[in-house]
C-alpha cells in the first residue's frame, strides 16, 4: 500500500529561472523523510512536484516502479497536509475527514468505521460535529492529518504543517505526527525550515540549499558528521577556524593558525602535507583546559541548563562573516561562571570536531557520505 519514492534527475524551471537544476533522491517505503533548508531552497517546490501541483521540467519521479510525472494530482493517491491546513470551512470536522472517502466510494459502514478510528487516533472525536472555525490551531492540524491519512494514501506529504502553531503546541504536535506516522507506517515526506523539528521527527533528513541536496542522512549523522560547512552551520551552530594539515608521523594533525595542534586519526588518507583546511567546532565541543586556545569573553547568555559565551579569538584565527563564535558551558558540572572580559582557554574535542576542505565543500573526515543509503 505504501510505496517508495524515486526521484531521478528532476528539474524545475519557472520560465528562465531554474529552481531545481538536477536533483536525485530515494525515499524508502515507510520512512519519515524530511526536506530541510532555508526559505527559497526549493524544498516546498520539490514536495509539490511529488504531489502533482507543480509540473516537472525534467527527470522522473517514481512511486515504486511507476513513473508518475504525467498523472494529475487527484489520481496520485497522496495524502497532503498543507501549511494553512486547508480545512474546508463549510464542512464539519467529520465531513472534512469523510470527503476523500466519498470520492473513493467507500461503502457506508466501512467509511463510518474508518472515520471513527482515525478521529480517535488523532484525538479529535469529541469535536467531530463542529465547524472548523470553532477549532484551535492544533485541533485544525489534527483534522488535516486525519483527512490526509484516512484515505490510505500511498505517501503522506506535509508542507511546514507546524509553522503556524505556537512553540509549545509545535512540540506536542510533532510527537503526535510522529506517533501517527509510525502507527500507520506510511511513507512520509515532510518539509520544514526548522532544524530542531527536523532532528526530532525524522528517520532521514535531506538538507537543501539553492535547489541542491547538500546531504542526506540520519539526524545523528547530519549533526555529528556534516558533509560540508553549510550543513554544519545550518544545523546547530558551528565555529569555523582556519587550519593546516600536518602529515608527519603516523597520525595526521590539524594545526590552528596560532600553532595549536590537534591530532586527528580519522582524517581521510588523501589529505596532503600543508593542505589548507577549515576546522569546525560546535559550542559544546569545547572544554576548559589550561593548554587550550586562548580567547576573550565578549558577552554571555544564561540559558538555565547551560551558559552561552560569545568569544573573541586573536585576529586571523576564525573565518570572517560568522554571526558569532560561541562556547556552551554545561552548568551541570561547572566550577564557576566567567564574566565578560575574562580570558579563558578552550580545548576542542578531537573525537567530535569536523574538518572541511578549504572551499568548505567537502568533509575530510573518514566515511562521511553525502548521500547515505
Amino acid at each position, binding site marked *: 500500500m505504501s510505496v517508495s519514492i524515486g526521484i531521478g534527475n528532476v528539474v524545475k524551471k519557472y520560465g528562465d529561472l531554474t529552481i531545481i537544476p538536477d536533483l536525485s533522491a530515494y525515499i524508502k517505503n515507510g520512512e519519515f523523510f524530511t526536506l530541510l533548508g532555508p526559505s527559497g531552497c526549493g524544498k516546498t517546490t520539490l514536495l509539490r512536484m511529488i504531489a502533482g501541483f507543480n509540473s516537472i521540467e525534467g527527470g522522473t519521479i517514481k512511486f515504486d516502479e511507476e513513473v508518475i510525472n504525467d498523472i494529475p494530482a*487527484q489520481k496520485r493517491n497522496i495524502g497532503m497536509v*498543507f501549511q494553512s491546513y486547508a*480545512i*474546508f*470551512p463549510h464542512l464539519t470536522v467529520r465531513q472534512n475527514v469523510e470527503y476523500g472517502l466519498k470520492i473513493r466510494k467507500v461503502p457506508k459502514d466501512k467509511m463510518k468505521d474508518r472515520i471513527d478510528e482515525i478521529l480517535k487516533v488523532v484525538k479529535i472525536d469529541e469535536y467531530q460535529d463542529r465547524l472548523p*472555525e470553532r477549532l484551535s490551531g492544533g485541533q485544525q492540524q489534527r483534522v488535516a492529518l486525519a483527512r490526509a491519512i484516512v484515505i490510505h494514501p500511498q505517501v503522506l506529504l506535509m508542507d511546514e504543517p507546524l509553522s503556524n502553531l505556537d512553540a509549545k503546541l509545535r512540540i506536542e504536535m510533532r510527537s503526535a505526527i510522529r506517533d501517527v506516522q509510525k502507527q500507520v507506517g506510511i511513507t512520509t515526506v515532510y518539509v520544514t525550515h526548522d532544524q530542531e523539528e527536523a532532528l526530532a521527527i525524522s528517520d532521514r533528513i535531506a538538507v537543501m540549499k539553492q535547489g541542491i541536496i547538500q546531504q542526506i542522512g540520519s539526524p545523528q549523522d547530519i549533526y555529528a558528521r556534516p558533509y560540508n560547512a553549510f550543513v554544519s552551520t545550518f544545523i546547530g551552530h558551528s565555529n569555523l577556524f582556519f587550519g593546516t594539515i600536518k602529515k608527519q608521523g603516523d597520525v595526521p594533525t590539524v594545526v590552528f593558525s596560532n600553532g595549536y595542534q590537534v591530532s586527528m586519526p580519522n582524517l581521510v588518507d588523501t589529505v596532503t602535507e600543508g593542505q589548507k583546511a577549515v576546522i569546525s567546532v560546535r559550542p559544546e565541543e569545547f572544554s576548559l583546559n589550561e593548554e587550550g586556545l586562548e580567547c576573550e569573553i565578549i558577552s554571555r547568555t544564561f540559558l538555565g541548563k547551560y551558559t552561552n559565551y560569545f568569544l573573541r579569538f586573536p585576529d586571523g584565527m576564525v573565518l570572517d562573516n560568522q554571526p558569532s563564535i560561541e562556547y556552551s558551558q554545561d552548568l551541570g558540572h561547572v566550577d564557576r561562571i566567567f564574566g565578560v572580559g575574562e580570558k579563558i582557554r578552550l580545548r576542542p574535542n578531537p573525537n567530535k570536531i569536523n574538518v572541511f576542505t578549504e572551499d568548505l565543500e567537502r568533509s575530510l573526515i573518514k566515511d562521511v557520505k553525502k548521500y547515505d543509503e
Partner: protein
Amino acid sequence: MTNKKIRWDFWTIVTVVILALFAIFLLYPLISLFLSGFKDTETGIWTMDNYARFFSKKYYKSALLNSFKLTISVTLVAILLGVPLAYFMSFYKIKGKGILEILFIISMMSPNFIGAYSWILLLGRSGTVTQFLKGMGIHMPSIYGFGGMLLVFALKLYPFIYMYVSGALKKIDVALSEAAESLGCGGLRKVFTVIMPLVTPTLIAAALLVFMNCMADFGTPALIGEGYRVMPTLVYSEFVGETGGSANFAACMATIMVVVTATIFLIQKWYVNTKSFAMSSMRPIQPKAVHGIKGFLIHLYIYLLAATSIIPQCMVIYTSFRATKMQVFVDGFSLESYRKVFSTAVQSIKNTYLYCLAAIVIIIVLGMLIAYLAVRRKNWLTNIIDTIAMFPYIVPGSVLGITLLIAFNHPPMMLAGSAIIMIISLVIRRQAYTLRSSSAILYQISPSMEEAAISLGDSPSMSFVKVTAKMMLPGVASGAILSWITLINELSSSVMLYTAGTRTMSVAIYNEVIRASYGTAAALATILTITTVVSLLIFFKVSGNKDVTM
C-alpha cells in the same frame, strides 16, 4: 458621586441628534405610510378596506405575482450569467481582463432605466436593429413586456453577482482547491463540492441585492413594461395617476412591498449569520492560461457578455449625436440634441449636481458619525441607530418617495415640492454605502490614536475631527463615490417627489423618453453616463483597486 446620570459629552449629543433626525425623517414617515394604508380616502376613518381591495381584485394581485415572477426570473438569470463569468475571470488568464473588468463595473453602475431606454433604441418599435431587420423582411419579437424587462434587468444586474462572487473567490486559499485534488477530487466535482459551497453565502448576499434592486425598480417597467404590471409602476400610477388614484390605497400597496422586501432581507440575514464562515487566503488562486477550444469558448462567452452589456451604453451616446427634426431622427449627425438640452433642460443638470453635492456632504458627515457611534460607542442606543440605518435597504425608492410625501405634506413640515425633500430622500436612499465603508475603515484604526490626542489635552470632539476623521477619510471616500454615483442616477424616489422646478437629470430623461423625444433624452443620458464613468475612474484611483462592493 453617581454614574447613573447621563453624561452630556460630545458623543451623547451626537447620538441624540442623530436619533432625532432618524425619528423625524425615517421612522415618522414610515409610520405615517403604514397608518395611511389603513385609512379611507374619502372619510379618513380607520378601515381594512384598502387591503381587502388589494387581495380581492385580480388586477392588483397579479401585479404582486408579476413582480415575484419577474424578480425571481431575473435573479436566476443573473446568477447563471454572473457565476460562470466570475469563475472564468478568477481561474483563467483572460485577454483584456483589465478593460473587461471596467466595462462590467460601468454597466453595473449605470442606471437601470438608461439600460431599458437604450434597448428601446436598439430593439424598440422604431429601434435601429428592428428597422434594419424589417428592411430585410425579418420581424423581431417585441422588446416590450416580460421578455424585455428580463433582458434589461438580467444584463444590468448580473455584474453584481460577478463582483461579489469574484470577491469571494479571491478570498479562497488555493490550498483548499489543492486539498480537494490531493484527496482525489478534480474537475467539475471539485467546483461543486468545494469552490461553490465556499462562495454560496456571498452568492446569496449578491442575489438578495439583485432581488431588491429588481423588485424596487420603477424606471425599467415604466419604460418597457407596458402591459406587464408590476408593483412599483402600480404604486406610482395609483399615487400620482390622474385616473382617480388614491394615496391611501397606494400607501397600502407600498406597505405590502416593504413587508415583502423586509421578509426577504431578514431571511437572507438569518442565512448569512448561520451559514457564513471566515476565510483567509494565504495564497490566493492564480489564474491559469487556457488554450484550445475551451479557451476559445470561454473568451467568446466573456466577450459576448461584455459586448451585450456595453453596446446599449454606446447606442445612447451614438443616438445623442444623431440629427433630429421635430423629435424624429433624420440622416446625419449634429449637436442639435445637446443644444436643445442646454436651452431647455439646463435647470435639471444644475439641480442634479446641486442636490447631489448637498446630499453627499450630509451623507459623509452622517456616515462617519454613525459609523463612529456604532463601532466605538457600542450601547443599546447606538445599536438602535445602527439598525435603523439599515432601513433604507428594505424600502424601495418609489415607496420612500410616497412615504416622504405623505409625511411632509402638511404644516409644520410642509416640504412637498421643495428641494429639501429631494435632498432628504437622496440622503436616506444612498447613505448606506458610505456608512458601510466608514465602519470598515474605522475597524482598522486603533482607538489609541484618539486616546493619545485626548491624553495630550484635546477634547473628544476635536480629537475626533483632528485625528480619527482625518484617518478615516480615504476609506470613507471610496464609499462616498459609490453613494455619489447612485445619487446622480437616482430615479425611483425622485420621480415621486419632483416638481417642475426641482427636476433632476434622471427625471428629465424619463420624461423625455415618455414623450418620445429620444434625441434630448440621449444627450442627457450621455452627460449622466460620462459623469458616472469619470466618478468611477476617480473611485478606482482613490481605492486603488477595482473591487466595488455595495
